[in-house]
């Protein structure tokens, strides 16, 4: 029964990762088909039906213009809901005792849960990208930067979801942030329009919305057009990521809502 205890519990990380991926596989319709169907409806309504009557933006057709924003919208909501549910459910059922009593570090727990949530939403984002290409011709000028933004956004919002899942004490709180904060911010964050078409005062207000920077940077990787400089977008993304990492570290250091 004696065995080496390694400094990195890779078996533990893999167990959590596999468990979370298997959970998505069990609910494939909810995890995959629902977001793809919802986004396809956006393309049909805004891209094909209304978009054909809209002017092109900086030479990009409206149907193509909204694609990065819609991918981001899915990425935000799916990353958050996957990660928040992943950690909230063991808290709710009580099975979290096993996680807390296992020889696994906070960083490894995060790697497992957040890694799985981010992987799922990245796959979903790519599927939506492929679906979008069926509705509208797409160009991706900077594919590597597009992928980097995709991964960083998925990781950041998965971390945010993880924090939300630990903070939440009920199902209502779990859906409060995505429905009442994130979705409005995304809709007002330039997913469907360039913010420079807004009156100056609303444009200034929009710049307080962090989502603007994320969507703008991601859209730049597709078409080379942006509401704000790509460097600013990257800085906001990295800042948000660092903030989430710092918050999660604090949670595990203090045991906030995890341990008595």
């Amino acid at each position: 029964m004696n065995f080496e205890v390694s400094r990195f519990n890779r078996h533990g990380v893999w167990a959590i990762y596999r468990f979370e991926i298997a959970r998505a596989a069990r609910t494939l319709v909810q995890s995959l088909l629902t977001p793809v169907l919802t986004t396809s409806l956006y393309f049909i309504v805004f891209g094909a039906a209304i978009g054909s009557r809209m002017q092109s933006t900086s030479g990009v057709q409206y149907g193509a213009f909204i694609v990065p924003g819609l991918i981001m919208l899915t990425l935000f909501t799916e990353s958050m809901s996957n990660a928040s549910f992943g950690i909230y459910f063991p808290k709710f059922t009580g099975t979290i005792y096993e996680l807390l009593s296992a020889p696994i570090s906070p960083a490894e727990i995060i790697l497992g849960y957040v890694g799985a949530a981010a992987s799922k939403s990245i796959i979903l984002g790519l599927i939506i990208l492929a679906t979008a290409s069926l509705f509208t011709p797409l160009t991706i000028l900077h594919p590597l930067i597009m992928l980097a933004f995709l991964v960083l956004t998925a990781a950041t919002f998965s971390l945010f979801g993880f924090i939300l899942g630990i903070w939440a004490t009920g199902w209502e709180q779990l859906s409060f942030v995505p429905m009442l904060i994130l979705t409005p911010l995304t809709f007002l964050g330039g997913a469907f329009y360039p913010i420079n078409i807004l009156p100056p005062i609303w444009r200034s207000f929009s710049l307080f919305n962090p989502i603007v920077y994320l969507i703008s940077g991601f859209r730049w990787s597709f078409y080379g057009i942006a509401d704000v400089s790509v460097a600013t977008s990257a800085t906001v993304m990295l800042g948000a990521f660092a903030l989430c990492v710092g918050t999660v570290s604090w949670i595990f250091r203090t045991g906030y809502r995890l341990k008595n």
Partner: protein
Amino acid sequence: MSIISISNLNKSYASGLAALLDINLEIEQGEIFALLGPNGAGKTTLINIICGIVTPTSGRVLAAGHDVTRDYRHARAKIGLVPQELTTDSFETVWATTTFSRGLFGRPPNPAHIDKVLRDLSLWDKRHDKIRTLSGGMKRRVLIAKALAHEPQILFLDEPTAGVDVELRRDMWAMVRELRKSGVTIILTTHYIEEAEEMADRIGVINHGSLILVEDKARLMKKLGKKQVSLHLAEPLATLPEALRPWALELKAQGKELTLTCDAERPTATYDLLRRLNELSIVYTEINTHQSSLEDIFVGLVSTRS
């Protein structure tokens, strides 16, 4: 050699409740240690601190020589925990959840070991079943399988047979004995005193957060256990005759019953008394003996100290 060493352990919650007060305890390798105490005494808090689920306020706990806070990786790898509540992943299969536990505790996959654990716990036929379809007793077995999946040296069983039928309880006792034979140290909390009496090598009694007694079970039974002999008399006695004063006797049931409380220091007391009664021509029609159980001892201890 102590496999668990607890020194000056205290736990106070933010509400001000002092759940544990200066606990000092050594648990020897390979023993079965039963922790008894009424509800809210601090049994689960103590276990949860050792396992890493609750943070201690002060004090130190070593598991297999490793500090459970500072060197938690090594300490926790040695420990398996079966919690009190039936907390399971309802939508997982028995096999998947047991395999998950092994991985979580840092062990490489070993289907042969999982196979053995499930067979030993009579879960093999249910290995592909979802946990939500199992009975309460079966779910309890799944929790034990999960705790054993990573081959721990120390196993905590927090109320392992709560809500379990008699047959399953006896199966579990047999399993615990088998585990002990393989060198696993077992610490159990229980409400069933007969469980502790049946299985434990040593008993610890905890009440109001304090460990009020730790004793070898046999010694505890001998020290605190009472053996009484009751004689049903043919004719009632008005008072206890002077000639019977040397014995610890009590006259009950309107003088119809004479009860002797035996003293381990005087093993022939019963024989001597019966001989004396014959000499005094006091006739008895029936003899009954009663040995106090661990339950009697426990109730006596907790009630005198609370």
